[in-house]
């Protein structure tokens, strides 16, 4: 089963006037899609809308053609996400947190144990597996959050600034896992400030500014930061 998430003319405006306006976006199976923009551009709001954390004022969000309020629990079991804070409780060990997360994503107890063991190895968390998460550094907590989002082999992955606080080794491990998931047919959406990083792994790069999709960048294109700022500046001047 593959996941196709689509947003059609989605608008969500907050009382402050910020938000996202008339956004059309589609995530395609097997693709890593990067969402880039300045702080406050609307990246996190858009991701929260995609996960049901906020409901749109207008527009439609569908997963494999099914409207959000009709998505079955089985379908949600194949979604993995990390928005802002990792799902990691300070009083639990890394392994316990991963088992908890897998169980909440519908895995049976035995499956949750084996999935946590696999991702602990894959993301090089073995050294910390029996330590309480509250004792870990910010970067390692982020790694636990990513492990929790990816361990159940989801086919729809939504990660907000996933490389935040990660050391270079963590960035490389994450890149490997995301490429592997996409190769297996998963739809992946990542937001990032690191244009070089997304340029390395993304199949598509969408630029958001002032809550609107304003264009795309070509992965691997030279001077990608210059191209990004040019797009944003042109849009801001026109607004």
């Amino acid at each position: 089963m593959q996941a196709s998430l689509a947003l059609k003319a989605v608008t969500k405006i907050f009382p402050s006037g910020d938000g996202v306006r008339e956004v059309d976006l589609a995530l395609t199976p097997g693709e890593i899609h990067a969402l880039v923009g300045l702080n406050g551009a609307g990246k996190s709001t858009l991701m929260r809308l995609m996960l049901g954390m906020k409901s749109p004022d207008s527009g439609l969000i569908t997963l494999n053609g099914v409207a959000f309020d009709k998505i079955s629990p089985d379908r949600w079991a194949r979604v993995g996400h990390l928005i802002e804070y990792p799902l990691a409780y300070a009083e639990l060990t890394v392994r316990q947190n991963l088992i908890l997360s897998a169980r909440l994503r519908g895995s049976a107890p035995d499956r949750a144990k084996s999935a946590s063991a696999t991702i602990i190895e894959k993301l090089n968390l073995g050294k910390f597996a029996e330590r309480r998460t509250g004792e870990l550094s910010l970067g390692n907590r982020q790694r636990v959050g990513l492990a929790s989002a990816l361990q159940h082999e989801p086919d729809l992955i939504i990660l907000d600034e996933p490389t935040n606080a990660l050391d270079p080794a963590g960035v490389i491990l994450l890149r490997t896992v995301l490429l592997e998931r996409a190769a297996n047919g998963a739809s992946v959406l990542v937001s990032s400030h690191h244009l070089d990083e997304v340029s390395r792994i993304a199949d598509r790069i969408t630029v958001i500014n002032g809550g609107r999709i304003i264009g795309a960048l070509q992965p691997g294109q030279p001077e990608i930061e210059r191209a990004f700022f040019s797009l944003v500046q042109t849009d801001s001047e026109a607004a």
Partner: protein
Amino acid sequence: MNAFSTALSMEWMKFSNALLPRLATLGIVLVPSLVSPLMASSRDTGSALSATNWIDYFDLSAGTVATGGLFGFGLVIVWLFGREFADGTITGLFGLPVPRDKLALAKIVLFVLWAGVTTLMLAIALICVGAFLGPGPFGGEAWSALGRFVAVSMLTASLTIPFALVATLSRDYLAPIGAILGVVIMSSVLADAGLGGWSPYAAPGYWAQSGGGGDPVTITIQLFIGVILSVFFAGLSVRAWKRLEI
């Protein structure tokens, strides 16, 4: 395993590993049963240790739990709900096959189960301390008083459930803890005004103070108002989690 039982077992995993529930359990069991004896030398008439029989002993202890329990039990329900917002883990509880209303219900069920076990532990501790102090023979009325103590403790615990909604709506610890303080002060004012029995938060203590006396129909109605309030707010909390947006 269905969504609710998964939610309940995961809530238990967090609860049994965290420090605050352990401290709250210790506090609720130890403060009434051990700290009071340390003050026994004064033999004030308002102390459980001034009781000369088991009935007064349990009823005075119930009065202590009716007030102190609002803080002890209240801290735990506020922690269960408020921590997800304060720690930022709430974002991870969206987009799951286990819906959030089941998670909220599991938190409330776990809280009630824990309150029951804690109440039983406190009752056993009180019996042990009471036996040491020797307030006379343990007859049929002593059992009634013990039952009244257990009911007062459980009613007090259930009266803290509305603070789950305050924690959910405020998304923090401060407002619900302030609300607990406000309720204790308000109940005290209403009790001073002679309306103690009709204030849901003062009714269990008022019942304990009356030693099980008074009109049974009136007392039943007064206590039932508190039960209805708790169930109503439990429902509102579950609904708030279902409709939550962050």
